């Protein structure tokens, strides 16, 4: 089980709830299963998100494995100058 949490900048987009448990083994599965199980996350997921796994931020890596019990945060994708 992965306890997916919303980064602080996304929480207000999903009604304030912070924790979204899913069974998943990759980033793609995490996002797909969040989309199915939690319709309130659509505004967050539709804009495109980065996924932080145990502190390392993956900007767009759908095939990245997600270890069971990992710390997982959804975050906005960062751009820069």
């Amino acid at each position, binding site marked *: 089980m992965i306890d997916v*949490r*919303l*980064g*602080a*900048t996304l*929480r*207000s*987009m999903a*009604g*304030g709830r912070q924790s979204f448990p899913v069974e998943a083994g990759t980033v793609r599965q995490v996002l797909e299963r969040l989309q199915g199980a939690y319709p309130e996350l659509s505004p967050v997921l539709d804009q495109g998100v*980065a996924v*932080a796994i*145990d*502190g*390392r*931020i*993956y*900007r*767009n*890596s759908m*095939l*990245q494995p997600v270890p069971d019990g990992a*710390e997982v*945060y959804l*975050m*906005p*994708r*960062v*751009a*820069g*100058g």
Partner: protein
Amino acid sequence: MELEFTTRTTFDKVGTRPPRPDGTDKVTGRALYGADLAGADMLVGKVLRSPHAHARILAIDTSRAEALTGVKAVVTRDDFPHIGPEGTVKGEVEESVWDVARNVMARDKALYEGHAVAAVAATSTAVARQALKLIDITWQVLPHVTDVDEAMRSDAPLVHEDMITAGMDPVPEEPSNIAEYRKVEMGDIEAGFAAADVIAEQSFRTEAAHQGYIEPHACVASASEDGLAELWCCTQGHFSVRDMCANILGMDLASLRVTSSEIGGGFGGKTTVFLEPVALLLSRKSGRPVKMTMSRDEVFRASGPTSSTSITARIGATRDGRITACDATLRYQGGAFPGSPVGIGAVCGMAPYDCPNVVLHCYDVVVNRPKAAAYRAPGAPMAAFAIESLLDDIARKLDIDPVELRLKNAVKEGSSSVYGPTFGPIGFEECLETARDHPSLEAVPGPNQARGIAAGFWPNFGGQTSVTVNVNTDGTVLVSLGTPDIGGSRASMCLMAAEELQIPYERVKAIIADTSALGHNDTTGGSRVTHSAGLATIEASRKVIDIMKRRAAATWDIDVDAVVWDQGCVRPSGANAGDHEPLTFDAIAAMASATGGPIAGHAEINAEGAGASFAVHVCDLEVDPETGRVTILRYLAVQDAGKAIHPDYVEGQYQGGVTQGIGWALNEEYIYGSDGVLQNPGFLDYRIPVASDLPMIDTVIVEVPNPGHPYGVRGVGETPIVPPLAAVANAVSRAIGRRMTETPMSPPRILAAIDGTS
């Protein structure tokens, strides 16, 4: 799939300071920038820009311009393919194509003074300028707003009549200039302030600052009758230019080839398109190549500065200096289109500190100004200006050394970041301790002098990167990169390839290849290239080594497992490998043809694992109480680079960021008249620092390796501009005994603060 590695700590070439490969061409004037390119029968393109801050375009009559001898094409909004806000996007596009398309050429309204409304291609600059005067536009001038606070008022003129604020609950029924509201929240803010013994609170404002690159935007476009086109331009991301132009003009990605020129500075401002789609359209319509170059005036009026901001913030702390709570309301204008960097800016401001209770209200606001573009650590310097100023006020109230206050609250490995994830290895404490112990802090400020301390943060990121490492038969190596070199990346990639291949640095060259030569590369920005292109260069170099090992093993007729790579040679290894003379890199390269053909390594990756970057700055300055003039006496920039591949370039990034930050703090601002017209679109009235304004900026490179990179690299380009606004403000405030809350801290503003009239 990620490259498997263990982060190295000892190096042979990496960390040395060889001459920069682009240096000779740049100092001799041989380097080709965007405006240096030319084609046969080339036309000159010029843009007609709105004289009004906000006006409806009722009609455009180009007939007189088109009739002028020498005019070969005129384009307006009617020449662009129709795309709407919900259009399909091809390629890798980070911005709204609809917004960028409308920024490139106004549609129903001119949204700011300088907004493009038509363009011509003519046989000379003089004819093109004359033709612009012959374009007749019927305007309906509308009320305008350029100030972020005024734009948020319910009675403000609407930049977009149909814009409903996103992120509000309930959804507003009326349109406004607030594009989006975001709330960042963690902990219990009321409990946090209840636990505080001391609270600092202020309102702050920062004016828009331009990236100030010395080279204006320029491009040459050549479209042919078969639908193909080529574009040469100065940009931070030619793949992104290709994708955005293709989307705006309805082209296939394969039909447009983009080559990036040398670049005379970008700093985020060359991450989008302005002239390029217009030049392509003019070329398509005229059937001839078209060159377009912005004047400095146009650069200021029409290419993005960063946001101006209005921030109200409050921080609470215990008597012993522990931060208990922070709440802030941040209002950033993004110019005439949504997309200001308020969200990332807000979290960057508090990211250095372990604060359990935080609420940040973030407002993205539109005004009648040019569309804001990224500028080094977009959004972060303004938020840091507020947060770091309040921390300095708390340090003074508690009589705690400002570095010690920050050390008490510094995030470290295992700390929860304000944006959520737990930090891995980071170097903020090391930066603070290095600054605290630096000899420059032994200087004692004299009369009217003071010291300001501030910290900064940028998260960094990776992104898509494609690199080819070609081995020539003489043993030299050519690294093809797709990330324009804006900060020394060619030298850094050569060093990393030389390190991996164990050959001399001088044997490796690097070029920036065009969009037809490599897979997609994300734009050079966000301090991503040394990390991402470095990962790809290392991976491609390791593939070269694998190929060379196979070639040598086959030559010796032994298994590849029986050879090793050692000191730039393949050697037999193990009891059954046989007795063979080692084959050198050059020898294997020379026999490439006979052993299977050219030797090349490729890496096409989506780089992840970027390491967060922290900095601590110390500014000593003197304020002239008679004139309000500020003289920077000493400046120290300490920053964690993870591992400095080429320390000269890293130090240059630190010094460049500091210089730009000092300019923003003291002098730079967009000044608008009551008519919404920019009053200072030139370097005479928009004052950026020059060498004689500053002392030698002292730098210290801290190296806490990033475990997400084989050499420990962290991006370094963004963070150096984050602390200076606050470092300067804290020093000025201590020097004059009054808190400075607005940038620029120009002499009149400082005198007003001294007089108590601000």
